[in-house]
C-alpha cells in the first residue's frame, strides 16, 4: 500500500484529547473534533452526545477533499481554512499539517476571532503530536495487531 497505516496509540491519543478538551474551553466552543483526511474520527470533545460525529467526520473530510480539488484546479496548494456561518451554529474547519482536520463548532457565546486565535495555537500543538505519531508508525517493528489473526477469525466475523 502506498499510504502509511494510520495508527493511534494511547500516549498520543491522550495528548490529542488534552488539546481538544482545552480548545473547547478556551474557544468557548460547543464541540471540537479531529478527523483524518479519509473521514475517520480521531478525537472529539464538548457536547458530542447530541450530534452524529461519524457522519460529521465523513462529510467534513468530503468537504476538505472537494475544496482541495478546487485549490488544485486554481493551482493553489490548499485552502487550509474554511468558515461557515449559520443562524445559530458556526463551523470553523482547519487543515492541520495537511494530514488531519480540526473542526470547531460554536455559537454566539464565542466569536470567529477568538476561535481563529485558539485554533492557531492548537494547530501547532497537534502538528507536533501527529509528526511524532507518524515517525513512530514508520519505525520498523511497530507490528499490526492483525498480523496474528487467522482465516478462521475472519470467517467467524461473517457467521450470522
Amino acid at each position: 500500500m502506498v499510504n502509511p497505516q494510520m495508527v493511534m496509540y494511547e500516549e498520543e491519543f491522550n495528548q490529542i484529547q488534552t488539546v481538544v478538551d482545552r480548545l473547547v474551553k478556551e474557544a468557548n466552543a460547543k464541540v471540537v473534533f479531529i478527523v483524518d483526511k479519509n473521514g475517520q474520527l480521531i478525537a472529539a470533545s464538548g457536547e458530542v452526545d447530541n450530534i452524529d460525529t461519524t457522519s460529521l467526520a465523513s462529510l467534513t473530510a468530503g468537504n476538505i477533499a472537494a475544496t482541495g480539488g478546487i485549490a488544485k484546479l486554481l493551482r493553489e496548494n490548499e485552502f487550509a481554512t474554511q468558515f461557515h456561518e449559520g443562524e445559530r451554529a458556526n463551523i470553523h474547519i482547519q487543515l492541520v499539517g495537511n494530514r488531519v482536520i480540526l473542526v470547531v463548532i460554536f455559537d454566539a457565546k464565542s466569536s470567529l476571532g477568538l476561535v481563529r486565535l485558539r485554533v492557531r495555537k492548537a494547530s501547532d500543538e497537534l502538528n507536533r503530536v501527529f509528526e511524532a505519531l507518524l515517525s513512530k508508525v514508520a519505525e520498523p517493528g511497530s507490528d499490526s495487531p492483525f498480523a496474528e489473526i487467522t482465516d478462521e477469525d475472519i470467517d467467524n466475523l461473517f457467521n450470522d
Partner: protein
Amino acid sequence: MSFINYMAREINCKIVYYGPGLCGKTTNLQYIYERTNPEAKGKMISLATETERTLFFDFLPLALGEIRGFKTRFHLYTVPGQVFYDASRKLILKGVDGVIFVADSQMERLEANQESVDNLRINLAEQGYSLEKIPYVVQYNKRDLPNAMEVPELRELVNPMKVPDFEACARSGVGVFDTLKAVSKAVLTELKRGG
C-alpha cells in the same frame, strides 16, 4: 488506508462501490442499510441531486463485530457514476482499502461498464494504487432483467482479471451481502498480511 486505533480498540476500513451511472451502487447501500441491525449501523448519508442521482457520495458506517478484541468498522462509500463527475470520483478513492465494481448486466450498458473499469484503473493509479493489488471484487447487478448478458460473456469483458464475482439483484437484495462479505474478507486478509 485503514485506521487502527489502539485507544478505542477499533479498526476502520474504507470500501468504495464503483461503477457506471445507474448500475445500482446506491441501491446496494440502501439494501445493506435496511437489513442491518440498528446497533451495527450509523446514519446513511446521500449527497444526491434533486432527481436522486448521486452528486458526491453516499456514506454508510457499519460495525461488523470484533476480531481479537478489536471492533471492526467499515465505512462504505459510493462514487457518482456519471462520466462528468470524474473529479469527485478521484476524491472518494483517496484512502480506499477495498473496491466493489458494480457492473450493469444489461447488454446496452456493456460499453459504460468497460469505460468505468478503465476509469477506475486510471483513478486508482493516480493515487498510487493498482487494481491488481487492492482488494477487489465484481458484482453483476440487475440479473433479473430480460436484457441481461450471460455471465461468462460479461466476465470476459468486464472482469478479465477474474477476481471473485457475484450475481446480484440489488433491488431485492440478492447477492448484496455476498459481495460485501467477499470484499471485507479480502480487506482483513490484506491487513493480516500487513498491508
